């Protein structure tokens, strides 16, 4: 296209219209490309022929106005909302009447969720292989924490919920709060740093709390830096991020997962009333236990003493019994017992008669009852 200029006082001057036409025709020579960005400021109205939106780079914040004929936009049936990530196929375009530059979209594809999910899944597999989510790594929470660390967004409802749950159950609790970004590109490194800072300041348990949010809002809590910070945290970590159905990777790396910030608060401190009851019970058991030990020793000693008292008599009785047995055995060996059974001892003078004596020999016969004389026939 030929752009006409006029010469005014020796200068080559273009009219605005001519200039815009020139820029417009030059831009038209640029190729049609795919551009990736987040949809923001989406404006679509029934009576407008065109749908307007801005493509934004979530990392740098750079913006690009874009538009698409409404009929075409509606035909895609994307139901896009602000914040969604898309690939837009289009070409630069210039509205010559206003000097506005924009991207004229020919096609839009939703990008992100699938790609994000796949990336997330790959990260999950990698960290799982490293053992970051192993059940064996999970540590028990301290029974009574000295200092609780809380990482949360500033003025977040999550913070209020955690603190309320803690102070209700255990009023003397000490909590150190680290307020940080909990969404957006700066969140992940900020959260990891906050975890490290709190640990350095001597907390003995750490709560990571964030209320519900969109999939993208919760992404920092699946960031490798945050997951690794949680896994390598020297003290146990309770993670309460998003709602019950969300499972950011930091939940898997944490020692305990809480379904809500309130639950997290209740988990990190004991109930002071329950503690009191337990203490009273332990105290009572201590007293009973001590008394029972003394009582048992007393019973054992008494029974031993009883046996000791009987022992000498018993020992003497044993000896006496043994003596009687010996006497009985002695008796059994004496001839006396034989005589009792009807036998007789025959003597001739002082000699025991073992052979038949000569007839007329005088004999002495001893029987059990006594002694009498006799003559051999």
């Amino acid at each position, binding site marked *: 296209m030929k752009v006409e200029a006029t010469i005014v006082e020796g200068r080559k001057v273009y009219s605005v219209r001519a200039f815009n036409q020139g820029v417009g025709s030059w831009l038209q020579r640029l190729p049609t490309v795919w551009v990736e960005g987040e949809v923001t400021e989406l404006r679509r109205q029934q009576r407008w022929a065109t749908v307007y939106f801005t493509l934004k780079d979530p990392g740098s914040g750079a913006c690009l106005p874009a538009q698409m004929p409404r009929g075409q936009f509606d035909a895609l049936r994307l139901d896009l909302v602000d914040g969604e990530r898309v690939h837009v196929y289009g070409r630069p375009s210039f509205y010559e009447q206003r000097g506005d530059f924009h991207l004229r979209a020919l096609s839009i594809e939703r990008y992100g969720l699938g790609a994000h999910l796949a990336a997330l899944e790959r990260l999950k597999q990698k960290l799982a292989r490293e053992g970051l989510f192993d059940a064996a790594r999970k540590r028990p929470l301290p029974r009574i924490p000295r200092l609780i660390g809380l990482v949360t967004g500033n003025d977040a409802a999550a913070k209020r919920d955690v603190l309320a749950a803690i102070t209700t159950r255990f009023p003397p609790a000490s909590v150190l709060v680290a307020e940080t970004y909990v969404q957006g590109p700066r969140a992940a490194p900020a959260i990891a740093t906050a975890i490290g800072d709190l640990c350095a300041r001597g907390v003995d348990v750490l709560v990571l709390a964030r209320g519900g949010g969109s999939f993208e809002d919760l992404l920092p809590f699946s960031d490798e830096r945050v997951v690794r910070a949680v896994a390598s945290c020297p003290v146990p970590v309770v993670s309460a991020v998003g709602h019950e159905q969300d499972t950011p990777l930091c939940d898997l790396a944490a020692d305990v997962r809480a379904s809500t910030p309130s639950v997290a608060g209740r988990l990190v401190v004991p109930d002071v009333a329950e503690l009191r009851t337990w203490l009273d019970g332990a105290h009572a058991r201590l007293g009973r236990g*001590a008394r029972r030990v003394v009582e048992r020793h007393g019973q054992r*000693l008494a029974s*031993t003493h009883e046996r000791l008292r009987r022992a000498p008599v018993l020992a003497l009785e044993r000896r006496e019994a043994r003596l009687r047995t010996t006497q009985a055995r002695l008796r059994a060996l004496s001839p006396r017992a034989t005589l009792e059974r009807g036998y007789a001892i025959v003597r001739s003078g002082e000699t025991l008669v073992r052979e038949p004596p000569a007839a007329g020999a005088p004999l002495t016969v001893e029987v059990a009852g006594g002694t009498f004389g006799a003559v051999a026939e």
Partner: protein
Amino acid sequence: MSELSFEQAQAELEGIVERLERGDVGLEELTTLWERGEELYRRCAEQLAGAQGRIEELARRLDAEGGD
């Protein structure tokens, strides 16, 4: 003997009783052992009474202090 703990005294006392009950003790030794046994019993009983007294005293003091 003053060095003997409750457990040691108790073990020795029970040893003596078992020996006496088995009866394998000389007559002269019988009296010595029995006397030793009675002495050990007395020591054990004293120590027990002492422990009991301390427990009760502590319990009373705690009750008086806080009522809990």
